[in-house]
């Protein structure tokens, strides 16, 4: 055989073999479905619509039995004020349980700060809640299997199984977890699992008069949340952590952390 023929035949054989190998691979439909189930809860926040009334925070606390006056909350609203000189101030008094009623911005140790209206370039509210990440850091660090992710994507805590070690509270890059002062276990937003699983809406989304919060099924192409995530310019928080958060924000600024 000539060298030229050998190379030619080898090229034909290798390309032919690789094609046939690919076609021989069978997909198990169940495996594919498991990787892409029909239901994946996702959340959409439209920051343009949020007016900082804090009804969502109050509703969440009542619905989920989080003590109203305790300094913990499953969801909260942040106020960002960006000044014309580039400075950024931000606060969330009591997690906005009672809304934002004052122009004074709580700056912790440096006291209350008021920014004059004419100095403000941008000012807006950003509601925060658990991102129910696709690869949740908090679940990975749980040593006892007390926190986990369901098939439909929600991250929950088994209150009977949690030993209260606090790893998950430290592990969450978004700071959405806390110790429940009465249950004495780690606690977090459940996307109101008891409501959405029974055909309802989350307490926060329902309480919002302005439609700033929406829950939906990201796998359903006709779902308004899925549509917005696909067609609009949405952002997520702290993408660089690789947790693949599933709470999407319309109108997210780089100043928001």
């Amino acid at each position, binding site marked *: 055989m000539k060298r030229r023929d050998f190379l030619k035949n080898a090229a034909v054989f290798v390309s032919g073999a690789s094609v046939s190998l690919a076609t021989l691979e069978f997909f198990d439909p169940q495996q594919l479905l498991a990787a892409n189930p029909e239901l994946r809860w996702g959340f959409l926040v439209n920051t343009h619509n949020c007016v900082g009334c804090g009804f969502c925070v109050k509703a969440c606390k009542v619905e989920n039995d989080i003590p109203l006056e305790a300094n913990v909350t499953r969801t909260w609203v942040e106020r960002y004020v960006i000044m014309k000189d580039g400075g950024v101030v931000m606060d969330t008094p009591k997690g906005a349980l009672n809304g934002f009623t004052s122009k004074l911005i709580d700056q912790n140790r440096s006291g209350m700060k008021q920014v004059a209206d004419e100095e403000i370039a941008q000012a807006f509210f950003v509601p925060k809640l658990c991102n129910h990440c696709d690869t949740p850091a908090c679940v990975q660090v749980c040593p006892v299997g007390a926190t*986990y992710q369901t098939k439909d994507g929600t991250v929950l805590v088994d209150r009977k199984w949690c030993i209260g070690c606090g790893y998950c509270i430290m592990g969450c890059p978004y700071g959405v977890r806390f110790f429940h002062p009465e249950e004495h276990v780690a606690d977090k937003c459940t996307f109101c699992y008891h409501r959405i699983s029974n055909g309802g809406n989350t307490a926060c989304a329902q309480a919002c008069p302005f439609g700033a919060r929406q829950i939906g099924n990201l796998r359903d192409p006709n779902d308004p949340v899925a549509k917005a995530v696909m067609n609009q310019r949405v952002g997520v928080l702290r993408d660089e952590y690789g947790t693949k958060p599933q709470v999407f924000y319309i109108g997210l600024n780089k100043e928001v952390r």
Partner: protein
Amino acid sequence: MRGHVWRPLLVVIGLVVIILVARMFYVPDDFGAQDRGYTFGFHRLSNEQEWKDYPAKFQDSEYCSGCHDDKSEELKGARHAMIPCENCHGAAFDHPDDPEKLIIDRSRDLCLRCHSALYMPSSGRNDIPGVNPEEHNSGLECAECHNPHNPSLEEM
């Protein structure tokens, strides 16, 4: 093998057996790697149902209009129609059975959640009529002049 090897070895084996037997009783049958695998789905499966059974407190405005259709009719077209009933009237729970009466939040602070004037140029807050709570009839409840179901003073 001699006794001084066997005896501690038996103690260790015994301990391991005791721990394994105790684990058999203590760990529920449905505990293990579920749909999301060992990394993200290692849990007690029945806990998902326990969360689904958590009692809901809020109903929704449609539930309210089932009986109070006169009120929801009155609200229609008013600028406050977008606000869910339970935001001011409180969570319904099993009303009218339990509780029989809901406690309405008529406080000034409730109104100020939206109507305290803040300069928020990139937020919907700027489109809402706002007052300075210290200057605008301080000490009076808002509901003394404004009807919460139809707050416009001209239409009263």
